[in-house]
């Protein structure tokens, strides 16, 4: 482990966790794959269902954030995190355990998004595989935060994990993972050649198979920055909604002009991140819609945290929304 005098300690903590545990918050394989339940997904196959453990992280983020907000980054929380890092290194206790007492009530919800996504894709006729024991985080945060040197060796690990599944196509639930597989890792030597798809794209390709979803009023679409700007996917979401007979409205800024949910700033500037989330929620509620749909784990978590109690709005992942149409009878 290196220490760097010019970066905030929390970033090093995240880095160390990714490198040591293959997960930004040191969640283990059992925790990451507990969503799978009765879904029978082989570990090898043509199409790899890739969660990257990202929706699984979400329940931990808000409690962590609550602790960090109102405390300056050079103060107690950072010392605590530094302490946590030391614990990871010297005693082997993961920070996740330190924050275990703060587990959010949303854990089941966020975990079930993985289940619902895999279920939808299976229903649409995709033969998926999922590597419950071997899946590791995409490394997006190493890329985002500047740990590019670490990314060299991490890319090899991700490549090996993917190669083991024998997949030719990887379907990413998180646009951040998709960006890594599509735009970043191909620049690395010997990274397996893959067709990279997002969940949205696979659903879009078979959208004519979806059943109509009854709704009372139009929904509003929030485009994620990565999905809309980096991956160029925004029309597909509207096409899917058209296919299931759902009318939608657009907020003041959307598609390639979409407003960031504030999520990327969460760990370092939690207060600002929250304000940005609140402002985006205002843009969404200003449309008059009472439900917002999106397709990114961090947008889901951020906007959820930016809700105004006086102006209720339901923030839902596209996965959750479509699942309702695919299977009315199963309640998870």
């Amino acid at each position, binding site marked *: 482990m290196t220490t760097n*005098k010019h970066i905030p300690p929390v970033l090093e903590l995240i880095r160390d966790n990714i490198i040591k545990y293959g997960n930004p918050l040191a969640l283990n394989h059992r925790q990451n794959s507990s969503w799978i339940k009765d879904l029978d997904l082989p570990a090898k196959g043509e199409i790899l269902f890739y969660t990257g453990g990202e929706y699984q992280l979400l329940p931990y983020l808000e409690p962590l954030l609550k602790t960090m907000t109102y405390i300056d980054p050079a103060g107690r929380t950072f010392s605590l995190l530094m302490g946590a890092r030391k614990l990871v290194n010297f005693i082997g206790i993961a920070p996740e355990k330190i924050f275990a007492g703060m587990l959010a009530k949303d854990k089941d919800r966020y975990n079930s998004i993985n289940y619902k996504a895999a279920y939808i894709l299976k229903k649409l006729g995709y033969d998926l595989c999922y590597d419950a024991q071997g899946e590791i985080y995409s490394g997006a945060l190493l890329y985002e935060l500047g740990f590019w*040197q670490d990314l060299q060796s991490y890319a090899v690990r991700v490549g090996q994990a993917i190669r083991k599944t024998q997949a030719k196509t990887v379907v990413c639930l998180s646009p951040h993972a998709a960006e890594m597989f599509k735009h970043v890792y191909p620049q690395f030597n010997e990274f397996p050649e893959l067709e990279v798809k997002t969940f949205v794209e696979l659903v879009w390709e078979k959208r004519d198979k979806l059943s109509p979803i009854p709704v009372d009023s139009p929904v509003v679409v929030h485009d994620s*920055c990565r999905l809309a700007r980096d991956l160029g996917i925004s029309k597909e979401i509207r096409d899917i909604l058209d296919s299931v007979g759902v009318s939608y409205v657009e907020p003041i800024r959307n598609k390639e002009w979409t407003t960031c949910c504030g999520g990327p700033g969460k760990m*370092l500037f939690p207060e600002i991140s929250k304000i940005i989330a609140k402002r985006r929620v205002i843009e969404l509620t200003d449309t008059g819609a009472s439900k917002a749909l999106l397709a990114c784990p961090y947008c889901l978590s951020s906007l959820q945290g930016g809700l105004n109690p006086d102006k209720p709005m339901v923030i839902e992942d596209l996965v959750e929304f479509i699942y309702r149409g695919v299977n009315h009878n199963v309640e998870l």
Partner: protein
Amino acid sequence: MSNFKKELAEYTKNLNKATQDENLTRAVTRTVKSYRQNVEAAMSQYPHTPALAEEVRTIKDYSMANNKELLERAMQAIESNHGQAFYAEDREAAMNIVKKIVGQGKIIVKGKSMLAEELNLREALQEEGNEVWETDLGEFILQLKNDRPMHILAPSIHVPREQVAEIFSKFFQKEIPADIAEEVSVVREFLREKYFAADVGISGANVVAADTGQIVIIENEGNVRLCTGVPPVHIVIVGIEKLVPTFQDAMKVSEVTWRYANYGAPGYVNIISGPSRTGDIEKVITYGAHGPKEFYVIFVNNGRQAMMSDENYRQALHCLRCGGCMYECPVFQVTAGHYGRTYLSGIGSVWTSFVEGVESAAPMLYTCLRCGRCVERCPMQIDVPKMVGRLRSEVVSD
């Protein structure tokens, strides 16, 4: 606690404080709304602009690749126009040249220039016993407030009229009402005297044509026109990245700049080739007819050459300083210039990395959300998120 931790703590405190400043949030929210409406209107009135921006991107590519040659050509052209051209490697060299020209105990009027901010020019000249006046209204307010610009084009974006009235009442030692027209008028009256009393006028430049040596300065208030036209000496300080091959190129760059700065047409476009001259008496050319008798252009490097020679960052020099990206930045929208040092927001963090060093830029680099909306707005399509990512990797491996 390490210096970096202290700086980060201070920076974060400032950022958070800025978000609680209702004046700032209100002012920026209104400005963003007007900016978007204005730029949309300007684009629909002049629909050729995006294609012109594409052409400017090519001009900039060429100009960066041939900067040395353009600099030589421009310096020759300026000299043949009876001006004097200088090259300054860094801040110290630039300030030495400026100080030598200006001297001490002079009255100086200056137009808005980001490079002047970068060089701390006003403060340096004041230390030499000169009286220096910012003539851009926003900058003038900040000078009296002892504050720094919160936006590159609208520096006092965060100061509402009530606060302006307070500052002016104190400075002019009379009651100035919180009425914008009155506030503008009192400064007009005050500075008018200064223009004519000034020994030196200092300006920046938006673009420089290498073939003709002509300097283009875009403005709205008319202050640049006065401070470059009235005093007997005019000094231009300009970054070497502002050079383009021809006058025609310069016009293209200028139009794209003001259009993305949300103007159909700006109040004034100043084109200056050299000192004022006349040949009206016996066709004998005499300098200093009505305008400046002396004309100096100082081309400044100060980290730009390093940016230019690194293909990963070269594109950041294409920045036209239209300010559009800042209006689209979700962090800037709630913090304004607190997200920055001399240069602001995402593109500012890239610039800061070169003119001040990545260590100074680190807090800014980690403030960027890398959301990429700035790239959508940028007429030069500068990929700020990509550069920020790469610079973070330099911070980390430092």
